[in-house]
C-alpha cells in the first residue's frame, strides 16, 4: 500500500512516454468492445423476437363466406390436438388490430371505401405440432385457406442462431485482439524503460514491483476501453430507440433500460476480465522470458 501512489504515477509516466500509441490502443480497444456490444445488442433483440414469436405461434384460418355456423367450426378446431386456443376475429376486430399496429400511420386505412379485412379464426398452437394442425384445419369443411408464419419464424430463429455463433466468434476475436494489443503495449513500455528496469534489478527489486506499473496501465487501458465502449453503446441505443421506434413499429424492441443496463454490465465485465487476463499474461512464461532477456541486456 505504501507504493500505491508511486505505482499510479509510474503508470501515468509510462502512458505519457508513448502517448499516441497508448491513445490508439485505448481507442482501438474501445472500438473493438463497441463492435462486440453491437453484435450482442442485435443478438439480444433477435432472440427476444424469436421467443416472443414462439409464444405467439399461431395460424390464421380463413373460412368460406357461406359458412353460417362459425361457432361449430370454432369448436371443431378447438378439438384438434396441438391447438391451445381459438378465437374468432371479425372484420371490425381485424381492422382495429391493424390500426393499433400502424399507430400514427393508421390513417392510411381511411383510404379504403370498405373494410378490407376478412374475419378469421386466430388459432394459437404448439409450435412443434404446426404441420399436423395446419393439415387438419385445412381439411375441415368450410375452411377456405390457412395462413401460417412458420417461414418467418424459422428465418428469424436462423438469424438469431447465426448471431449467437457470430457473438461467440466476436467475443473470441475481441479477447485475442485486446490481449495482443495491450500485451504489445506493455512490452513496448518495458523495452522503452529497459535501462530503468535493469537498474531496479541491480538494486534487488522483485519482479512484481517492477512489473506492477506496466500491468496496472494494461488493466486501465482495457477497462477504460470498456467504459468508453459502454458510453458509445449507450448513446447508440438511445439514438436507435428514438429513431427505430418511430420508423419500424413492427419490430418489438426489448425495454430500453433493460437493454442498456444489461449491455453496460456485460461490457464492463468483459473489459475487467480481459484486464485481469492481461495482468495474468504478464506473469506467464512469455512475460518471464522478457525479464530473462532484460537480465542479460
Amino acid at each position, binding site marked *: 500500500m*505504501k507504493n500505491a501512489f508511486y505505482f499510479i504515477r509510474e503508470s501515468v509516466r509510462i502512458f505519457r512516454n508513448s502517448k499516441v500509441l497508448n491513445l490508439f490502443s485505448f481507442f482501438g480497444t474501445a472500438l473493438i468492445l463497441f463492435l462486440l456490444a453491437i453484435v450482442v445488442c442485435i443478438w439480444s433483440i433477435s432472440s427476444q423476437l424469436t421467443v416472443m414469436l414462439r409464444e405467439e405461434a399461431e395460424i390464421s384460418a380463413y373460412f368460406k363466406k357461406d359458412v353460417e355456423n362459425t361457432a361449430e367450426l370454432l369448436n371443431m378446431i378447438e378439438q384438434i390436438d396441438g391447438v391451445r386456443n381459438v378465437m374468432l376475429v371479425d372484420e371490425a376486430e381485424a381492422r382495429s388490430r391493424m390500426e393499433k399496429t400502424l399507430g400514427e400511420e393508421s390513417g392510411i386505412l381511411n383510404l379504403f371505401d370498405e373494410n378490407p379485412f376478412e374475419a378469421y379464426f386466430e388459432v394459437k398452437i404448439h409450435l412443434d405440432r404446426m404441420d399436423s394442425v395446419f393439415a387438419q384445419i385445412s381439411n375441415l369443411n368450410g375452411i377456405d385457406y390457412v395462413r401460417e408464419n412458420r417461414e418467418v419464424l424459422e428465418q428469424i430463429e436462423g438469424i438469431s442462431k447465426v448471431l449467437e455463433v457470430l457473438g461467440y466468434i466476436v467475443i473470441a476475436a475481441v479477447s485475442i485482439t485486446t490481449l495482443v494489443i495491450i500485451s504489445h503495449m506493455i512490452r513496448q513500455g518495458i523495452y522503452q524503460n529497459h535501462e530503468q528496469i535493469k*537498474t*531496479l534489478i*541491480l*538494486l*534487488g527489486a*522483485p519482479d512484481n*514491483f517492477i512489473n506492477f506499473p506496466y500491468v496496472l496501465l494494461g488493466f486501465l487501458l482495457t477497462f477504460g476501453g470498456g467504459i468508453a465502449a459502454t458510453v458509445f453503446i449507450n448513446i447508440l441505443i438511445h439514438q436507435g430507440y428514438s429513431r427505430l421506434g418511430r420508423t419500424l413499429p413492427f419490430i418489438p424492441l426489448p425495454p430500453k433500460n433493460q437493454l442498456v443496463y444489461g449491455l453496460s454490465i456485460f461490457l464492463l465485465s468483459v473489459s475487467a476480465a480481459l484486464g485481469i487476463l492481461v495482468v495474468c499474461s504478464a506473469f506467464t512464461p512469455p512475460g518471464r522470458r522478457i525479464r530473462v532477456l532484460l*537480465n542479460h541486456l
Partner: protein
Amino acid sequence: MIKAEKVFLRYSDGTVALRDVNLSVKPGEFVYIVGPSGSGKTSLLKLLMGIEFPSAGSLYVMDQPIVRKETRNIRMLRRNIGPVFQEFRLIQGRTALDNVLMGMRFLDIPKRQMINSAKDALIKVGLEHKASVMVEKLSYGEAQRVAIARAVARKPALILADEPTGNLDYDNAINIMNLLYTLRDKNTTVLATTHATHLIDNYQKTTLIRVEEGRIYVEHRGEQA
C-alpha cells in the same frame, strides 16, 4: 561477509579479468580497491554483486554462493547491498529524492522512515537543497553523490562503490570518504574502488586491495575491526 577461493573470471571473448582471487572480508571492514585501469577492479565488484559469475573457484557474499543458477537468491542478496555504479545508473525524469527513494520502495521499510532516510542521506552527501531537482539537471559530481545517497539510505550490510569519488572535487571527495568510513561504526562493510590513493592515507584501519593484471594483493593497514 565475503569469501573467495581461487576465483577466476573469464569473459566470453576469452579475456581473463580475474585470476586466482583469494579474499576474506569481515563485517564492518573498510576496503579500498586500487589498481590501474583495466586491471580488474570493476570486474571484482561485478562478481560481488552477482552481475558476473566466477568461471572457476567459489565465491560467497553474506553466505550466498555467487553462481548462475542462484539468480533469484542473488536478487534477494542485492537488497542488502548498496551499490554505487561507475555510470551512476540514476533513473532519468525523476528528482534526486525520487532516485534515493527508488532504492528503498521495495524494501520492508515503513513509508515515513523511508522518506526520512532518503532526506537524511541527501543531507549527508550535501544535496538536501537539490532534493526536488531532476537528476538530468544535476552536474556530474552531484549525480554521483545522489547515487551514493541511494546506496547509503537503505542502510545495507555491504556497500560496493565503483569510483565513488571519481567526479568529485577534493572537498566533496573527502566528505564522501568520511561518510563511507563512518558507516563501519554501524558494522557496514564497504568496498570501494578508487584511483584517488592520496585520499586513502587519511584513514586508518582499512584494507587495501591492489589489483594488477587480474591478480589481487591484500594489505591490512592499521588495526582492523
